[in-house]
């Protein structure tokens, strides 16, 4: 007896699927990555073991994973906010760079020897820089329906080149022996770190903002409006929700949070600006947001997991001499699988047994 298959749309999604489907997708992606690694002549088991050991094997590894999870959480929340209203902010990378540039500018031109003043100033300016950078794209989208995917992406390139201009030009450290980097931050402008690790207080900002976003989406009128615009723009317009203003506002806050990520990276971790300092957090954040299904609390967890991937990738580079791009390939595979897995959330496959009466619905 041959069972026949039928695919039908799910009416409601069982709650266990909320975590099992993304987890399964990551599993499939890692399996595909394993095939790829063995084609490259690397033992996938050894590679994955090295990644886990490097990122979770000891206290230092875990702390490094958290170091990567901080900007990922912030940037993941940032793009998640825009994605909630189906505005494609692909520009978190550029907004991170703008936030970092603002922090460096504050230290350079408005330095006060007081940590609290410096943090507040850097925080505000980074929010403003990232927010305006993204808000501009939001304004173009709201006013003239200019495709925001492309404008935010182009603004990534522009922001990175702008940073290059300052790093190679007017802000270059004269005592850096010709290396392209800005002058190191004075002690008062550095974020405090926890214990003997490199984990900086940005972690509290990341967790705090995640909670704030949770409250915003769940319990505020604005959060509700954002979700309505995302789910049904026509209903939103009919209900009198100003979607134009909300697009600009959401993009501004999205960029502001990404800008904070740039500020904490430069003030908490590196203490100066170097070319390519962000290293793609803004793009990885897209995977974070999508895997977390735009849920702020899940964003923290997913960021930690992708932190494992990034730190593990560094280990791979050292131990197995695999280039860092292998992590990017894995990221692409994860995103493919997560997208494909959505299908199983939306549909279910039913076996039709012989003799079952077919129902015809008009």
């Amino acid at each position, binding site marked *: 007896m041959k069972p026949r298959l039928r695919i039908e749309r799910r009416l409601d999604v069982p709650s266990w699927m909320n975590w099992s489907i993304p987890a399964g997708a990551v599993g499939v992606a890692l399996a595909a990555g394993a095939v790829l690694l063995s084609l490259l002549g690397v033992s996938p088991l050894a590679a994955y073991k090295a990644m886990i050991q490097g990122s979770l094997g000891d206290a230092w590894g875990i702390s490094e994973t958290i170091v990567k999870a901080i900007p990922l959480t912030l940037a993941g929340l940032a793009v998640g906010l825009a994605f909630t209203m189906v505005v494609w902010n692909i520009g978190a990378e550029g907004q991170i760079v703008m936030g970092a540039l603002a922090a460096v500018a504050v230290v350079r031109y408005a330095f006060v020897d007081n940590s609290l003043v410096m943090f507040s100033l850097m925080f505000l300016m980074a929010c403003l820089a990232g927010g305006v950078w993204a808000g501009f794209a939001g304004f173009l989208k709201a006013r003239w329906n*200019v495709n925001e995917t492309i404008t935010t992406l*182009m603004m990534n*390139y*522009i922001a990175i080149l702008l940073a290059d*201009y300052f790093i190679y030009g007017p802000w270059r450290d004269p005592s850096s022996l010709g290396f392209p980097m800005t002058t190191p931050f004075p002690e008062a402008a550095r974020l405090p770190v926890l214990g003997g690790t490199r984990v900086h207080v940005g972690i509290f900002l990341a967790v705090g903002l995640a909670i704030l976003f949770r409250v915003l989406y769940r319990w505020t009128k604005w959060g509700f409006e954002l979700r309505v615009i995302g789910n049904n723009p026509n209903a939103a317009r009919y209900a009198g929700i100003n979607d134009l203003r909300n697009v600009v506002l959401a993009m501004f806050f999205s960029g502001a949070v990404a800008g904070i990520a740039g500020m904490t990276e430069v003030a908490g971790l590196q203490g100066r600006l170097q070319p390519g300092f962000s290293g793609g957090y803004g793009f990885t954040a*897209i995977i974070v947001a999508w895997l977390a299904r735009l849920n702020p609390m899940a964003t923290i967890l997913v960021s930690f997991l992708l932190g494992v991937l990034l730190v593990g990738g560094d280990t791979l580079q050292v131990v197995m001499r695999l280039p860092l791009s292998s992590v990017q*390939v894995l990221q692409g595979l994860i*995103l493919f699988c997560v*997208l494909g897995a959505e*299908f199983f959330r939306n549909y279910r496959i039913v076996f039709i047994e012989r003799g079952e009466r077919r129902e015809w619905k008009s």
Partner: protein
Amino acid sequence: MEILIPILSAAIRSGTPILYATLGEILTEKAGVLNLGLEGLMLLGAFSGFSATMVTGNPWVGLAAAVCVGMAVSALHAFLCVTMGANQVVSGLAITMFGTGMSALLGKAYVGETIRGLGILPVPLLAKVPLLGPVLFNHDPLVYLSYVLVGLTCWFISSTRWGLTLRAVGENPRAVDAAGLSVARLRYAYTMVGGGLAALGGAYLSVVYTQMWVEMMTAGRGWIAVALVIFGIWNPLRAAFGSYLFGGVGALQLRIQAAGTTVPAPLLLMLPYILTIVVLVGISVRKGKGILLGAPASLGQPFHREERD
């Protein structure tokens, strides 16, 4: 005039890779599928074209290999978007991530190598025409192929039966389905053709234009191509004009740098990206004033046969 000729000629050459990707994306989007993976597809094409040329010594084999790779990877995009009904924006981003990573990973061994790619082949007689000859007809064969393709896609989309079906799939897939044609099959086909053309554009960069392989060598050209589709309001002829405009800006910026200007290089390098935004804003502002929207009505929306709209 004498100064203009080399700049215009360079504009054609550096616009050609963008043109291939733009033409491909027009076909894909006309079928209702948005492929934001052009950047990744171009990089994969650039890498596979280069490596296949190096291994076989024949640039044509390299270009063919690039097209095959582009079609294979964009088939994955089609699988996710058409069969699985996944989000097309995110799938395109995944293609770009995967392509960027994969080309860098596999291409590591080829950095610094050189190949003998396609050379210049002046068209007999036509190349002698004053002004037009050196600008248009003193190039490599792929440039001529792109001229032919622009005309061919224009004719195909507007005047053939297949072109009508293509437009219908993008505008009203339900009608195509009712007419007894497979929406899925058509969308797969045009996504793969578009991916193949994007990869060919990438391969043009490595096999013909620079004749070397550098990581991330497309430098955003794939994204510019996505923007040019909108700029060209889904019309191949306008897209060609846009591509050469961007090629011209790229060529001009190289010339300004070579002439020893005091403007720092990063600021000059921003030009094409700023121009993209300006052009996009320009076209969108005009659209608002009643110019025909060219976007296919079902662009980006998956088609579910069993569901009502």
